[in-house]
């Protein structure tokens, strides 16, 4: 078993674990953490594909590496924005009404829905 196989399976499993967390965790903050796990799994896929393409003295194809660096920064911005929204929602709605009914229906609450 090579590093590519081991980490390839690990990346796919991380995607699965993150996806499960994103589906089942009710709190927004936990969903954000799960999204980050899911994202890191997908980035690892790029890493494995780059590792397979090692050539010309470069141990990992630089193009996927560059894509991942861009992706990590985008994912971090998304995390920061989502957390700012969560905190602001908590402040505005207050702890008691976090599961309150939105005007659109009984389930427009990200924490409950």
């Amino acid at each position, binding site marked *: 078993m090579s590093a590519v196989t081991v980490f390839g399976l690990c990346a796919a499993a991380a995607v699965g*674990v993150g*996806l499960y967390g994103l589906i089942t965790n009710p709190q927004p903050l936990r969903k954000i953490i799960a999204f980050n796990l899911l994202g890191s799994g997908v980035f690892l896929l790029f890493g494995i594909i780059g590792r397979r*393409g090692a*050539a010309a003295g470069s141990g990992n194809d630089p*193009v996927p590496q560059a*894509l991942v660096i861009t992706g990590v*920064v985008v994912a971090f*911005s998304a995390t920061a924005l989502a957390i*700012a929204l969560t*905190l602001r929602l908590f402040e505005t709605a207050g702890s008691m009404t976090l599961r309150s009914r939105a005007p659109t229906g009984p389930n427009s609450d990200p924490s409950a829905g």
Partner: protein
Amino acid sequence: MSIATLFEIVLAAVVLGLAIWTITVSETYSAAVGFVAYGLLVALIWVRLDAVDVAMTEAAIGGGLGGIVLLGAAARLRESEAMTAERPGRVVRLCAAALSASIAMVLAVAVLILPDPAPTLAPTVISNAGATGLANPVTNVLMAFRAMDTMLEKVVLMLAIVGVWSLASDQAWGGRPGPRHEADPNGVLAFLARLTPPAGIVIGIYLLWTGADHPGGAFQGGAVLASMWLLVIMAGLADTPPVSSRSLRLILVAGPGVFLVVGLGGLCFGPAFLAYPVAFAKPLILGIEVAMTLTIAATLALLLAGAPERSATR
């Protein structure tokens, strides 16, 4: 089985175990701690994959700063946790588990059956490195071959700032982000905040400089500078600047702005938009990277600080 493979299997198993623990643990704060540990170990995987640039970015931004912002939010939301929604029922959880497992399996199969020999752009990247005069192939891809993506991603960072700031209340608009930190001026934090930044700033600048030829670059340098600034703010030695500050705004647009101007220079005086003349490629790219590092440092720190909360004068 060699020692290296054994190490890799153990590393992968620990990473997966941490991932599962992070998802299933009942306390959100513990989950955030688990995520930070997970991020650091994933950086180790990146080192094993011979992608040191990514490893540094993942450790600094993914695990490091991302972990800090998650930990901070988890701490603030801690008391609300008891009353948030219950988890979905057993049937839904089983369904979700089965479906997520099938997606993971599909992906695993897709990765395992990729063609051999794998297609790669590494030789093309290396053989064209002469056009920029930089020896780090990843920096070449980011700054020259796929410069458009990098520039647009700087705009994404700026929009994240706009998004976070837009969450301020109308009264706090124009004010300073985050709470004012008061720390004991003789405490450990203040001591660290006086001691570390000089070294941290040197490390940040070194990372930027060395990124031309070795692993490193604007992101990694910017992340180090951002954490130094945050340390100083948290120790109460400095305050966050008001969001209406003109100089702050200029720092935040400097990265994409300089990138855009250099790109347009290539359009007017060179062969194409975002093309660098060979003679000046290295200084131009380094100039963009200096501006980008400043912007990244300020952006990352302000994303962590959050929306404006206090008026500028207080």
